[in-house]
């Protein structure tokens, strides 16, 4: 004899015709004699029928054009697989690590570059030296020789206030070398 509990628990299979023939007949028999289960069956079937009868919605008219637009952009954009993204991330991480290592090694031991620069020569006529500087500092033992080398003779170019002072030296055959600090040696690139 079937009880209501079993009927309710397996009612889904009964309603969907998923029970074996023997079981189905037992359910039929119970339903015939049980007012409460008949009520349950009636309410459920009517409710389901009402729910299924709800108006179905339709996609808006621009649904397919919008979809095609999206698919077009998928076709056009470069394919980005997760493998590609992982590869890119790994490459970026590797490059960052390399740069970081380089930075650390620079901090602990500066990278020194040997640079050889040619000596700078400034040529001026010998008589100009005697004319301009010879009288004032020539006998001063604390003034180095190279300081006595004057600027080039003023060019009367009408160049304004400082025009003559910064005139370009004129190279001659009997010029004297102008000693300057030789800027060769080690340069600290990290600075």
């Amino acid at each position, binding site marked *: 004899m079937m009880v209501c509990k079993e009927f309710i628990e397996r009612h889904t299979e009964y309603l969907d015709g998923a029970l074996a023939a023997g079981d189905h007949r037992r359910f039929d028999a119970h339903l015939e004699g049980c007012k409460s289960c008949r009520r349950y069956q*009636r309410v459920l079937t*009517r409710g389901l029928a*009402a*729910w*299924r009868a*709800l108006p179905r919605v*339709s996609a808006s008219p621009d649904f397919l054009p919008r979809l095609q637009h999206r*698919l077009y952009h*998928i076709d056009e954009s470069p394919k980005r697989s997760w493998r590609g993204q992982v590869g890119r991330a790994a490459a970026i991480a590797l490059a960052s690590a390399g740069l970081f290592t380089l930075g650390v090694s620079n901090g602990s031991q500066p990278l020194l570059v040997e640079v050889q620069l040619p000596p700078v020569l400034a040529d001026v006529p010998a008589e100009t030296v005697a004319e301009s500087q010879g009288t004032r500092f020539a006998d001063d033992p604390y003034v180095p020789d190279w300081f006595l080398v004057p600027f080039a003779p003023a060019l009367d170019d009408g160049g304004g206030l400082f025009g003559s002072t910064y005139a370009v030296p004129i190279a001659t055959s009997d010029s004297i070398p102008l000693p300057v600090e030789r800027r060769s040696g080690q340069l600290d690139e990290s600075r």
Partner: protein
Amino acid sequence: METKPNLEVTSRYATPGELEPLGRGELKRLEDAELVTHYLGGQRFAFNEIAERYQDRLLNFIYRTIGDRDRAEDLVQETFVRVYRHLHRFDPARKFSTWIYTIASNLAKNELRNRARNPLVLFHSLRKSWEADHRPLEFEDTAYRPDDLFRKRRVREQVEAAVAELPEHHRVVFVLRELEGKSYEEISEITGVTLGTVKSRLNRARNRFACIISPMLD
């Protein structure tokens, strides 16, 4: 001597240019799996046919599950985009409708979970669709009395609200069975749960549904 059938040839997809191009009318007569084969064989229009075939079915399924029509349409779009991207991975041995419903079902479940995390979205009520502006135009049957019409409308509202009250995992199973007419096996495959769980969830969903609507229908 008995020769073995060449399974490799029958199980692979056609390469582009291998299949005869078909017109729209001919595409409409094809089965889903054949459409997939033709699409992967280079016939772009075959995907349009798939989209036309499933757009309303998926829209109703997702709409009944999440209760928001506009959002449902967005999710149907997303379903097709995912299908488009992964169609080459579709196993022809499986049923295409089950595969596409699995994708749609997962999107609907994610939507419901996101809403649960963000309660503000819950203001989207199912009843919104029954406001006068949203209700489809209906021609009244003069054989009905006004109170019958009112009662009918109330029943519709009640059953819709009853389904909305079901827990998410029960509702998906309920909609797949009652609206889409899917078999237990298909529902099991779509939702990724066992056959026994499908039966159990469906039974609980129906029980709950009956309890909610019984005052209206009894």
